[in-house]
């Protein structure tokens, strides 16, 4: 991608954030006025462990330029080990992205706690930049 293209390209990024830690961390980013690119659309889930790989693969094959699942740090899960389940599934998702011809950088699993507002903003900023560098999803029509 040319640098001009990178600037023009506004990726659509989805963040699936668990209610107890990451969604709260995203809220804290707001409360602390940490700025990050406006490309991220957050979808609240109760636990990162409730996200079916289908949802991620579907999103990425239907035009999302990037998807990030955010969960509690290991040990912090409100439901004991949902985040660890999510971690296992994320490995599977990453592997399968190859099968779908999608760059694995388009998907990420990240831990964000309720007190990590700035970290959430940083994560979103970096992820957006990463996606911008990659350019539009191969599935974007």
């Amino acid at each position, binding site marked *: 991608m040319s640098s001009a293209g990178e600037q023009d390209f506004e990726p659509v990024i989805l963040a699936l954030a668990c209610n107890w830690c990451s969604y709260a961390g995203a809220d804290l980013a707001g409360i602390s006025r940490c700025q990050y690119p*406006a490309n991220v659309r957050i979808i609240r889930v109760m636990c990162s462990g409730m996200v079916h790989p289908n949802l991620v693969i579907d999103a990425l094959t*239907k035009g999302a330029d990037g998807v990030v699942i955010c969960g509690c740090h290991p040990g912090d899960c409100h439901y004991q080990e949902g985040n660890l389940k999510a971690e296992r599934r994320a490995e599977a998702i990453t592997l399968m992205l190859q099968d779908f011809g999608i760059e694995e950088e388009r998907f990420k699993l990240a831990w964000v706690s309720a007190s990590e507002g700035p970290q959430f903003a940083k994560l979103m900023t970096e992820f957006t930049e990463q996606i911008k560098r990659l350019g539009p999803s191969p599935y974007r029509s």
Partner: protein
Amino acid sequence: MNPGGRNPAVGAAMVVGGGIGGMQAALDLADAGIKVFLVETKSAIGGRMAQLDKTFPTNDCAMCTMAPRLVEIGRHRDIEILTLSDVERVEGQAGNLTITVRRRPRYVDESRCTGCGLCTSACPVPLPSEFDFGLGQRKAIYRPFPQAVPNVFAISRRGASPCQAGCPIHQSAQGYVALVAQGRFDEALAVILRDNPIPSICGRICTHPCGTACTRRLLDDRINMPALKRFVTDRRPDYQLPKPSVERPEQIAVVGSGPAGLVCAYHLRQKGYQPVVFEALPVAGGMLAVGIPTFRLPRPVLHAELERLSALGIQIRVDTPVGRAIRFDELRRQYAAVFVAIGAHVERRLAVAGEDSPGVMGGLEFLRRVNVEGPQEVGRRVLVIGGGNSALDAARTALRCGAAHVTLVYRRTRAEMPATAREIEDAEREGVKLVFLTAPAEFQAADGHLKALQCIRMQLGAADASGRPAPQPIPGSEFVLPCDTAIVSIGQTPDVAALGERLGLDATKSGTLRADPVTLETAVPGVFVGGDCVTGPDMVVTAMLAGKKAAISIDRWLNGQDLRAGRELEGPYPTQYVIDTAGWQTQRQIPVPMLDPAQRAKSFDEVETGYTEEQAVAEARRCLSCGICSDCHMCADACEAHAIDFGMLEELREVKVGAVVLAPGFEPFNLAALPRLGYGRFPNVITALEFERILSASGPYSGHVQRPGDHREPKRIAFIQCVGSRDCERDYCSSVCCMYATKEALMAKEHIGDRVECDIFYMDLRAFGKGFEAYYERAKGRGVRYIRSRPVSIEEIPGTRNLTIQYLGDGERKKTGEYDLVVLSTGMQPPRDAKRLAGLFGTELNRFNFCQTSVFAPAQLREGVYVGGPFAEPKDIPETVMHASAAAAKVLALLNDARGSQIAVKEYPPEIDVSGQPPRIGVFVCHCGSNIAGVVDVPRVVEYVRTLDNVVYAENNVYTCANDTQERMKQKIQEHALNRVIVASCSPRTHEPLFRNTCREAGLNPYLFEMANIRDQCSWVHMHEPEKATRKAKDLVRMAVAKSRLLDPLKKGKLSIRKAALVIGGGLAGMTAAAELSSQGVPVYLVERGKELGGNLRHIRYLFNGESPQEELRNLIGKVSGDENIHLFTESRITAIDGSIGKFKTTISSGDRVETVEHGVVVVATGAGQYQPKEYGYGNGNSQVITQLDLESRLSDPGRDGMSGTVVMIQCVGSRDKERPYCSRVCCSEAVKNALKIKRQSPDTNVYVLYRDIRTYGFRESYYSQAREQGVVFLRYEEDRKPEVAKNGGRMDVTVYSPLMEREIRIEADLVVLSAGIVPDPGNQETAQLLKIPRNQDGFFLEAHMKLRPVDFATDGVFVCGLAHAAKSIEESIIQAQAAVARASAILSKEYVELEGTISSVVAENCDGCAYCVDPCPYKAITLVEYTVNGSIKKRVEVNESLCKGCGTCQATCPKGGIVVRGFKPVQLAAQVAAALEVV
């Protein structure tokens, strides 16, 4: 029960302290039917835990685990939180207490504040944040932390600052100064204009009593308020005064256009009246125009102010002397009221000979002529007589009129001059000479020209009526001052003769007009007087006050109101609070730039040129913010919810409760008591709590670990333990510091990486809690270095500001280490309020000022007053939580009969059936003041939303969460038959419950509600991209709409509850739980597998504090076996437990009898056993090697003699080793207890204790000290070099290597006592399987959450207590048993358990029974069942709704959508995704 047998008990309780303990007690009580008043002295609950970063030993984020609980309390209908409150008075007795609570004002209306935070950004007063221990800043209006509950702001406000109080018109000086300091000049101007209609004049010539009151002058110089005011007004020469918002027809006459008249006219105009100002002179402005020279007040400035007033509609008629141009009675007839402010324009005369000579003139006359006609001719030599500002003005004007020499003659000294010092200085610089102690005697003229003034020298005598020393002439000291012109400027009086009498107004003896000092009324109704004509010549601002007062009086008079009420604080008053001036840095006032004195004396140009922007900001930053809140009202202007109320007052509230739980927490050790550690002197020596904030991602450095001194990342960190613990004064252990230091060291490594070195200086590493030892091992494995030593000194290295620690390590001599950062592990002190609280509630404190409790009643202080948390003894979070629950259990027992009597019951309308209806969606988009609307184009979003399918209604609101909007929402739901509601505003985490409730009140199922977070996750994070934020807001709403179409009404399942409990285990914990449950009227099935009740307690013969365990045990057994509510099953075992919370079915087999009982809850109290040592030659009939329990029974056997010879105790037998890597917690204390007993019985017996770390935590520490004092020898050994015991004839040889002495020591012992550890009961495995509850690696039961749910299991309705949970003391077992009861009571007190609506459900047509979801379910809520279809057997899963928590692991596992979480179904999430990807 009816406590005290008097009035019926009150079904309410008070919890004092809103920390984690208080919160737990409040929740336990409220959930069990007791109304709770939660009293918190701070502005929000949360306590110390809120400040922590992570928690040990799980490294959970403190806020993550705590925030949901905060929210739960915040919205609990039966918990009333009283913040900023302290208990003031306590009356009555247990069951019936009347408690008076003093509530300090918050200045923010809790019911209106939406927590949006606009106020904070508007506030100009930065303060060190207490929450971050001063490492970060907050504003005067603040919320201690973002998750605070109540989620409302508060203002730190002491009241009017000295400057404001000292100003006659109470100009908010601190306010505009604070705004200037922030470079917010326009807002500063707005603040000034609020009280002052002529600020550009005041900025030049007001004498500023505010400065006289300024606290800064105590230190160096006052703040230069006038120069700041002038700067602000000069910047915007075209500023306008606020326009009146109402209009009234009444015309008011104002006589005199001086500052009094103008200000009165202004305030009247603001109230809507039509004032007309009459001025006798040809120019308006009174003294301002004719008395003040232009080099101090340039005329364009004055004219501009007059113009502004005229622009408001104030008529000023010059050349209109009242009495001549218009008659006074006419005035009174034509005007609704009259204000007379004619000033004091008649000059005093000297009354000396020759005063009528040519060349002698009055000072005012001279100034008036210059001001009206232009420069006047004066002689070469000018004398000015007088010492006031007018005299100086005249002198300086004379210079500018061309005089060569100007001399000021004053009869007292410089010190007595009424003129301001600055004016005197300015005049002298320009060349005016001053002659003091000189009085004029006679003007000498010749040839029609003034020649000289004969004077006489004076000396100062006794004070006169004015308080100044009276000058006395010195006889024979006459001398002559030659002069060509003399200007007499010794004061003025009002023209009472000319006007006052003609107006029919009374005069005073001193020649001024008489007026009521408060109301300015005169004897003539409707006529008010004020200003110099009443006070005599005075400051401009005093005249302005008169004008303001007159306006208030006139308004009240015209409206028939009381003229006098509530005017006490009009005019200057002294500050009403004390300001601590300690620790301020000096910084002199910034001088105001002026014209060169030589130049300026020749011109009438303004002398001062005014501050530059940088100078103004620098000067304003000197302000000390005495009032904290500056009264600038910027927050009130910013608050669109109108929640700020500066009029709030302290209030006393009387609350009736049946009992009290004291949970005020602890106070961190005050380091001022230990100056040698360098805290406060060395910036890189910090406390552990400060380090928590530094580590915290939401802390002052956003989690980037750095030292406060220079914000550099530390490379070497030292932690110093036992700071404020285990010393002579505080002979107790704070119990938590070893672990938190370990945690902080680990976290530092996590943040910085393993390159950071962390050294912990400690005495004994007290990792005695559950999972602590493993955590300690983990830290060691990660490279945290533990140095057993108490540091000798800490010194700062100049230059690097690093710190040198000198310490004594094992063996060698003194060592030294250099560190970048030193963290002091400060201990716990009793709460600051300890003595006061104890006094109020009539309870006892121990010698350290913690609560005095008994081992067998650990939560009770006296009947009706209970304690939970570190107020009783230093303890960590889970123990605090348990203790608080235990206190709640005691309250529940006491108030059992009154339960439910005071709790709120809410009725909802019947639910509308929306099934089969197409979605009709209503969307409410919130502005959140300008929080959202300031960035996102809300109307455009609304417009867009209306175009979406199924949206039938959309609107925008300033605050959707406001009460009136909620009512409106209900209306709209009905009006438009909405069956889905969406609010686009803030976070569902905080506001979803509110909106759901509103839906419910409108008859809509609450689950048909959905939120779009367009504030926290949109406008706030894209503040500089309004276009993109608006687009994103549309997307977010579209996604919410997409999901809402697929929402289903959900029902919360209900489980009826069988009011009975099963308690497994008849030891201390089990019996305590059974007895407590029974005292709440709950039938109990107590199952004990042994023959006898009592468990391990049967072997404990005595305690440290003299209490008698066996007597207590007998009482308890008696109570339990005699209680008809308790069904005792001894020699019984449980063979099956079916069911779940609310209804368990348990099969108990006792011998050949098998019985099945039903109960709603289970308490697991199966206890633990003593380790049977294999070490040190124990057993095999060797009577010289015994355990501590053996020793205890021997020592308490009255038939045996005392010990003699040498006793060696060996610690950690069967604990802290490979096989059992946990600490058994109690053995150190047991050893100390038995050692003391031996010493008491036979002081000559030698007692050696061979240990690894002595873990006598809490108050046990003092017994350890006692043991050492009494000669018990404590010898440390190392894990890898355990002591050796060998038989040597009749004695035992014990060999131990002492690392301290670096050599082996051999002791010949008569008795070797092994401190055998505690091992989990082998039956735990079976119990775990029966109840499907987990155990940890060591074999003890694993609670739901190690910090906040220490007695619960993840399986609802099952609780754990006592040794089954982990090793613990008697007291701790009792606490946990009581806590289990409190937790169980919350369930048993209800008719049914309400289940969450958003839980899993099986989609029958999709589920094929593959069973993938069964094992991953963390709650074991899914089971595989078989059923038959057309004769073939099929499988399918089933969800136990009472176990499911809705985590969705199953839904993410199922390969074919056979199980889904309601409200988060894959189709619903997919709809959101699809909507997000839609191209708009």
